[in-house]
Each structure stands twice: as C-alpha cells, then as structure tokens.
C-alpha cells in the first residue's frame, strides 16, 4: 500500500519526467529513505518496480549489443542547397578556350552517424553520407530525378569508420585513431582541405602540454593517410617483362601504393577570456607511386620535359594521381573581441610553400602548358586570410556568423584533389574571395548564403593545372553562389 502511495505521489507532484529519465527515481527514493518515510528494503522494492515499468517502455528496452558499452550518441544533419555555378575558361586552355558554363541546380546532403563509447578508453564512430556519383570530395547529390527511375548519382557511402584509443597505454597525452576519420590537423578545411574529404589512415595525437603556464598549450599530430591503394597484380611471370613498379603487363598497370603524411605542431596561448591565439606550423608530404620524382614521365617518343627525364609507359593519370607535395605550411588563428556587444571575432590565415612544385610542373607539362626551368618553383605558394564574426557565439537560436576570406593558390602549390571543390571549380591557379553568412532560425535549423569568386593567376598554363590531381578545367573566372537550409538532429 505504501509503495503504491509513494509512486502515485511522485506522479502527482510531476516527478514522472525525472523518473522516466532515470528509470528508478533514485535520488527521490534515497531522500524518502533518509527521511525515514521508507525503509531501505521498501525503497529498493519501489526502485525495482519503477525500473521494471521503465524497462517495458521503448527507451527502457533499448539494449546495446555489448553489455559494457558505456554510451552511444546518434547524430545527423540534412541540407537542401540551391546553387549557381558559373565558370569561364582561360583563352589559353587547351580545350574549351574561353568557353563558359552557366549552371544552376538543386542539391541535397544527408549524413547520419553514431559515436560509441566503449570501456578502457576506446571510442569509435561510423557515419553514412550521401555522395553524388562516387565523388570523393562531395557529399552532395542532385535533386531533379523527379519520377525518373534511374539515377546513378543517388549514392550512400560510409564516410567515417574509425576507432580511437585515448589515454593510450595509460598516457593521458597520447591518443591514437585508425580508420576513415575526420582530418585531425588544423588545416583551414573549407578552402585548402575540402571538408567532405575524410582521409583513411592513422593519426597520432599528442598533448595537451602546458610547459610554462596553463595559458600556453602545446600539442601535435602526426598522420599517415592512404592516397591510393592500388590493386596489385600478382599474376605476373617473374621471368617475363613482369612486375617492376611502373611497368605494364598484359594491359594491367602495376603500381606501388601512394601515401601522404601530415605533421603538425599546435601552439596556442590564451591572453584573456576574449583574446586567444594559435599558430600551427606543419608539413604535408606525399610518397609512393606516381610522384614525378619517383618515376619516369611521358612516353619514349613523346614531348617530355627537356630537363633530362627519361620516359617509360604506364604513367597513371587522372584524379588518383598523387600530387607532388612537399608542403611546409603555417596555419594561424586569433580570437578577438568585436566592437558589437555579444559578438566575437576570429582572424585566421594560412600560408604554404610546396617544394615539390617543380616536379609537378615537369610531370604535367609534358604535353601541355609552359616548359622550361623553374616553372613549378615560380608557382608554388598558397595563402589565405579571413575574418569571421560570430553573434551570440555562433550557437543556438538567433546566433549568426559572417565570414570574409581572401584566397590565393598558385598552380603547383597544393593538390586539386584536396582543395575545396567549391573553390575555383575545384582547381588551383586561382585567386579571389568568399563571403558567407549563416543565421540560426532555431537551435537546429539554420540558413546559409555563400558567394565565392575567383580569377586565374596565370592565364596561359593550359591544361597542366587540370592534371595536378584536380578537376578538369583552367578557369579565368568562376562565381559560385549557394543558398542552404540546414538542420541538425
């Protein structure tokens, strides 16, 4: 009788939401036991009854496959986008000189993921995302199939599959991650590294250390990522013309795998609650098959670079070519106050120099573009600077963000396969600006307007820049306008 009375009383007093959240009304029952209203045994019986009732609800029936899993977080986001994408090719281009593209389309993106928290400092994550036609650096698919029955562009792929070991081996400054993961380094992702590209590989994260004061933080990351894992040809006659790196046998090209390393040190200092600065110097290097300085170029009787390279067949081509990257870069950000109340600002910038640029230029100007000494070294720098204003800290209903950026990417300074596909048609050899504004209608729904404009730096490089692992094209001008409606769940 007393048990029923207590349970009804809790319901009448509006405590059911707490009971539902906790399942057994723990703290309330503890209080009643402490007050002497219930004996300890009565308290336990009521707890068990309430937990039993809760377990019959959908929330209570939720079970994990592994009993000791500590938690799961489900999350996702969806986006509708209207896009205008206009491009004009350089008159020096080897194809489509001076031609223009005027395109508009409606696009969508859907991502759904789960983060898992295991015992013993392990956590993992998976995420599925839409993709248009297998494009590795875009999670967007196009609307417009209507009632059409076939559309090869509506695909779903796994864009995150990773496992992380924190406090690895009992060291609270060491974290290891393996799998397809978010980029762990501080590279300004919306420009230099397309945010849809989640690399496959391993990351070691060190830090945070506070060597001089708690306001000064030092950390570092070291990542090794797959660029291309080629299908090896194992069925080669060892006595024949056979397998040897770049050779072709029976029409099948044999290649060694290609990799990329990214090393970075993060140094940050907190001057005050509103002033913080971070500087992150780093290095990006590519190695493996198809780097120009690791293989011969062109054809035995082709045009090739006159600087003394020999040539063989079997050079891989296309987006899968690993770029010649020996990039030393520095990434920086300063958080500042802003003169409007309840706003903050971020000044950010990035500068990089690619010491592998000359090899890239030699490789790709075999049939096109400019030949001669020092072609690459003269076009091996990139940089950007921008300022971002956040209203209401950029989070929650009513918050807003305004962002203005100037960017400059020379022809052989980086990789077109990594650069944001929404910048300069996804290619290098471009300079210009971007303006972006976001407003949160609710805590979960926001709208964004984005405009990016670019002009080419060199107008007569031909298609050589197209072959630097980027999309086909050499644009004198591009304008991209995107209007998004985003929601998170």
């Amino acid at each position, binding site marked *: 009788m007393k048990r029923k009375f207590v349970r009804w009383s809790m319901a009448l007093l509006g405590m059911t939401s707490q009971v539902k959240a906790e*399942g*057994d009304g723990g703290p309330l029952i503890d209080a009643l036991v*402490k007050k002497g209203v219930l004996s*300890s*045994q009565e308290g*336990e*019986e009521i*707890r*068990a009854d309430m*937990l*039993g009732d*809760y*377990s*019959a609800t959908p929330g*209570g*029936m*939720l*079970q*994990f496959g592994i*009993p*000791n899993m500590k938690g799961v977080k489900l999350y996702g986001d969806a986006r509708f986008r209207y896009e205008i994408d206009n491009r004009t090719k350089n008159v020096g281009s080897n194809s489509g000189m001076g031609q223009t593209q005027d395109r508009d389309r409606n696009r969508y993106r859907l991502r759904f993921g789960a983060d898992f928290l295991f*015992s*013993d*400092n392990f956590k993992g994550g998976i995420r599925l995302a839409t993709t248009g036609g297998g494009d590795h650096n875009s999670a967007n698919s196009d609307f417009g199939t209507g009632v059409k029955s076939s559309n090869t562009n509506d695909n779903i792929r796994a864009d995150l599959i990773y496992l992380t070991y924190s*406090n*690895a*081996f*009992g*060291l*609270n400054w060491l974290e290891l991650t393996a799998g397809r993961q978010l980029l762990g380094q501080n590279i300004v992702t919306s420009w230099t590294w397309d945010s849809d590209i989640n690399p496959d590989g391993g990351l070691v994260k060190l830090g945070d250390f506070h060597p001089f004061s708690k306001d000064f933080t030092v950390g570092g990351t070291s990542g090794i990522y797959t660029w291309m894992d080629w299908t090896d040809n194992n069925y080669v006659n060892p006595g024949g013309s056979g397998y040897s790196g770049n050779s072709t046998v029976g029409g099948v090209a044999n290649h060694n795998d290609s990799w990329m390393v990214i090393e970075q040190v993060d140094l940050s200092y907190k001057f005050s609650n509103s002033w913080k600065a971070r500087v992150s110097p780093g290095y990006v290097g590519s190695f493996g098959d198809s780097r120009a300085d690791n293989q011969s170029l062109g054809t035995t009787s082709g045009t090739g670079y006159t600087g003394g390279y020999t040539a063989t067949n079997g050079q891989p081509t296309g987006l899968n070519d690993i770029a010649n990257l020996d990039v030393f870069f520095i990434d920086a950000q300063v958080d500042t106050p802003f003169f409007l109340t309840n706003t903050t600002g971020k000044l950010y910038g990035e500068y990089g120099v690619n010491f592998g640029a000359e090899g890239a230029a030699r490789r790709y100007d075999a049939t096109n573009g400019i030949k001669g000494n020092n072609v690459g070294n003269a076009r091996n720098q990139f940089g950007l600077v921008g300022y971002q204003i956040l209203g209401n800290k950029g989070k929650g209903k009513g918050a807003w963000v305004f962002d203005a950026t100037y960017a400059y990417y020379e022809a052989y300074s980086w990789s077109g396969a990594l650069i944001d596909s929404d910048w300069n048609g996804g290619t290098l050899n471009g300079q210009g600006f971007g303006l972006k504004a976001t407003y949160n209608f609710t805590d979960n729904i926001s709208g964004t307007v984005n405009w990016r404009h670019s002009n080419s730096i060199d107008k007569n490089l031909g298609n050589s820049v197209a072959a630097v692992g980027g999309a086909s094209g050499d644009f004198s001008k591009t304008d991209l306008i995107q209007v998004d409606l985003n929601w998170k769940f």
Partner: protein
Amino acid sequence: MKKTILSVLLAALAFAPSVKADKLVIKGSDTLGAKLVPQLAEAYKAKNPGVTFEIAAEGSTTGIAAITDGTADIGMSSRRAKSTEMALASTKGVKMVPTIVAFDGIAVIVNSANSVSALTKRQVEQIFTGDVTDWSAVGGTPGKISIYTRNTASGTYADFKELAMSKRDYAGTSQKMAGNEQIAQEVSKNPAGIGYVGMAYMKAPGVKVLSVDGSLPSKSTVQGHSYPLHRPTFFYTNGPASGLAKSFIDFVFSADGAKIVEQVGFVAAK
C-alpha cells in the same frame, strides 16, 4: 518398446532443469560469495540436513544474469541491477526482486607501510581516475601510485565508480583483480599500492584502511551513513523468494544469520 521408453526418459532427465528442489544454486558477487554466503550456507545446512548448495562467486553481473537466464535460485549482487538488465529480464518474463541482505562499506586500503592514513573523497577520485599519480601529491612519500581495482563484472567496481569517482573512468594504469582477496594481497605486497575492498576483507594482513573525509568504515558509520562509501548488498530472485530460497533468506535475517553477517564484517540488514 522398452528401449524407446528408456531413451525418452533419459533424454528428459538430460534436459531437466539443473536447479533441483533440495539444492540451492547461488551465483554472483565475490563480495558476498567469497566469505559471507558460504558461512551462512554451512550454518543453514547444519540446521537443514539434506540441503546442498552450489555457490559461484564471479561477480555481481554474473549473478543478475543467472537469475535472468534461470540458472540460479539466488543472484548475489553488491550493486543494483541496471535498467538494461531489468529490461532484458523483463523480455524473458523474469521479474527481478531485490532483497537487501546486508549493508557494506567499501574500504580504501593501502600498504601498511604507507605514511598516508587519510584522504578526502576528492583525493580518492583523483587517484583512481589517474588525475594524481604520485603519493607526494596527497602527502605521502614520493613514488608512483599503483592502483588495484576489481574487474568490470564486479558490483564493487561499479559501486566504487559511482560513490567515489563521480562516475568517471578508472585510470588506464589501474590493474584489474578478480576479487577482494586478490586486491588485498597485491596491496599488501606493494608499498605504493592502493585498492578497495568490502569491509569483510579490510583486516587482511599487510594492509591498512584509510579514512575518507574523516570517517573510517564501521558498523556505526555505515548504518549512520557518515562513511561516504556505504552501500546495500542484495539477493535477487525471480519474483518474491519462495521455497528453499525463501527459507534460506529467512535464515539470513534470523538471529543466527545476523550474527554470522556481523562476524564476517558486514552490517546486518535487519
């Protein structure tokens, strides 16, 4: 025909429930099952000849699971059943009913040569989570702290995490032991060791008990709740206890049973 009947009978016996009417199967908590329940069982058998016991103490989680899958009459547990365990039991038509069998305090123990004799609850959390790794940080002789804990099947492991660690994770360097006696043994051998055990195991040789927030675990501090790391311990049954299980539980609450509970080092529930 006879062979067929015999085969059917043998098959029926082979698949008969393993729990027999004159045998009590008790599984679960090491805290209860290593000392207390075996001594209670011996005393009960002395009064009830013909009754046998099967006792397995491999952790509270195994005791709760055994009630759910019907392989035990009583599941011993030093922690409350989780909502996921209750849900699983419910899907199998099992109603988990708890009975508080005794109250206990979780004693924090160190090697008897350790100069530290008292810690705050915050310091206990800092040590066991790995925030503090050297004895000098808590007033002891400089040296790396060696942490000994129970394994994840243990109710004491879960209780200590909730009562002393604000539900934070154990330090990655902590070493997991199968039972209270093993923890006491390791701490007694390691001058830098620290661990936790139920009150029934805190008088092991070579260890000493630390006060937590100025209070040592004892019958009065556990009953009065002044010792911060106190907890009830349970027998779980499928529905209200009946038959042999009820008879045994009634014995635990009798004067003879309560005397054994107190002698072993627990606090009698009734």
